[in-house]
């Protein structure tokens, strides 16, 4: 199952799309995973997971598993005040403190935990993000146009990252 947990413990690359599809552009991560599943074929060592709001338990389990992936790619909309639709990568060490907060919007780890995963587990962690236009306070489904338009480019970035990983 591409959409579940199954088999991720035997994969070297785990791609997690994180966010809540009920809240506008917060659904970016899950939408990227759906696009990847539809348009691309990923190598056997890679698992694509639409984690929705359930990233916490997946990362919990990865952290404690004996066999860990070598790389985790996190895809998540994340407001750092850029132009809506702007794609960027975040280095865990460079997240300004006042922005760390944004990571917890939907159960995504704080950067400390990401550091923990990286340092304690020697897992390479990439965070690929897109500046959202609108994350509403009340339930409203659907990405705004600029964010939706960014999906193909983000998918290309993800595929590039995936290919950097030697297939085992």
């Amino acid at each position, binding site marked *: 199952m591409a959409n*579940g947990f*199954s088999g991720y413990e035997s994969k070297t690359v785990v791609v997690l799309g994180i966010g809540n*599809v009920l809240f506008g552009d917060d659904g970016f991560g899950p939408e990227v995973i759906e696009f990847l599943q539809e348009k691309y074929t990923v190598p056997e060592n890679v698992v694509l*997971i639409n984690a929705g709001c359930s990233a916490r338990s997946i990362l919990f389990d990865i952290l404690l598993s004996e066999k860990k992936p070598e790389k985790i790619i996190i895809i998540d909309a994340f407001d750092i005040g850029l132009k809506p639709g702007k794609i960027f990568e975040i280095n865990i060490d460079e997240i300004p403190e006042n922005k760390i*907060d944004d990571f*917890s919007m939907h159960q995504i780890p704080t950067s400390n935990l990401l550091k923990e995963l990286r340092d304690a587990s020697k897992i390479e962690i990439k965070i690929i993000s897109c500046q959202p236009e609108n994350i509403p306070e009340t339930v409203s489904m659907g990405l705004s146009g600029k964010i939706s338009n960014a999906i193909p480019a983000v998918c290309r970035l993800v595929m590039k990252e995936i290919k950097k990983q030697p297939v085992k």
Partner: protein
Amino acid sequence: MGKKIVIQPVTRLEGHGKVTILLDDSGNVEDTMVHVVELRGFEKFCIGRPVEELPRIVTSICGVCPWSHHLASAKACDAVFGAQIPSAGRKLRELANSIAYTEEHILHFYFLAGADYVMGPDADYSVRNVIGIAGKVPDIAKKVVRNRHLGARMLEILTGKSIHPVAAVPGGFSKALLSEERDQLLEMAKEILEFAKFSIDFAKTKIFPDYLDAVKTIGVIKTGFLGTVTKDGTLDLYDGVLRMMQADGSFEDFTYEQYTDYIEEHVEPWTYLKFPYMKKAGKLSMDLENPVGVYRTNTLARLNVCEKIRTPLAQKEFEEYRSKFGRPVQLTLLYNWARLIELLYNAEYAVQLLQDPEITSTDIRIAVTPRAARGIGCVEAPRGTLIHDYETDENGMVTNINLIVGTTHNNAPINMSVKQAAKTLIKDGKYDQGILNRVEMAIRAYDPCLSCATHNLDGTIALKVDIVKASSGEILQTYKN
């Protein structure tokens, strides 16, 4: 002059909880407030949609218990359509529910509440978390992960998906279980059962004895309880009647359709989240000495309201628990003990259901027809009684919807437990990180849904504690983890 202590997560607003402790001039607790932000706008969003879409949509409400929402929603749809689902369809739903429960209860016990117990509530933040547990008891950590994997894989085999389930549909279940799948699942369920047995033994011998004093003092309040039982009083997490128990142990049973006769919702100016209370009490008072109308849900409540458990090992544990602590149990930290008994029950029940020949029947679903109706579906979610109440027009489009989730039922008691804990632990302005951790423990025992938003992945609540001089607003001290 009074001081204000704020315990809040280092996180943004959505879905988060924060605790405010107000100290009076002599440094003692005057009042506390637990802020939980609820999901807003969901009801409006659902209106006008085909009701059969809701079991799929509601799984996005919560990343922690999607199965509970999925099943409550499917049951509300059954009721709207007037569908009596086939027995095998019901058993498959119950099986999925039991497996999901084992995953949840294992996670909560070992990593959310467990960090406090295994490492000790006064342990430094840097070790009082899941990584600390992995370092201290690595073999157990491995078992935890293996069993959670097993649960997730079982749900995939059973239903196709574990994160965003779609298998329960109005009128039944969409995927029949093949006999070879059943065989595979049975082996996995037996392994989880072994782990459940280990867990309760481990907790009873290695964990709880050290905390019996804390159990008797932290967060203890006197309330009523709400849970689901069958007509003969057996614990049931999927279906039955609702039982409202008073603090004195007397109780009344009522059907789902009667819930608005028994539950009323109170509003406080400082939070969006409502405070449900017993309607028959006439009002809600969260006064610690004389609470009125307050009831609790979740594991402690369920084991208080039920007479028995249908599986033998869990029944044995239940008897021991009841003879030790009585009925109703008011000790808040015993939520964790009750949770382990439920873990055992669910693991045993999954095995029982898989051994039932009917589980591989293909008669699992009936056709449904839209109509104008109201339907109420309830299940016991890990965090408490979950109520989905839908109304549709003649085309099956949603015209009205109301949800009451487990954490909402527990809103008043969580606030009371925090106040009680803070009053017990903070005297004459003296407190330290350990004391604040114990306030957190009182909250965490309820396994509130705010935990999904505010817990770090390492199992702690991300905290920022500001001690503020109320008169000047000056921050006297900040603790941060």
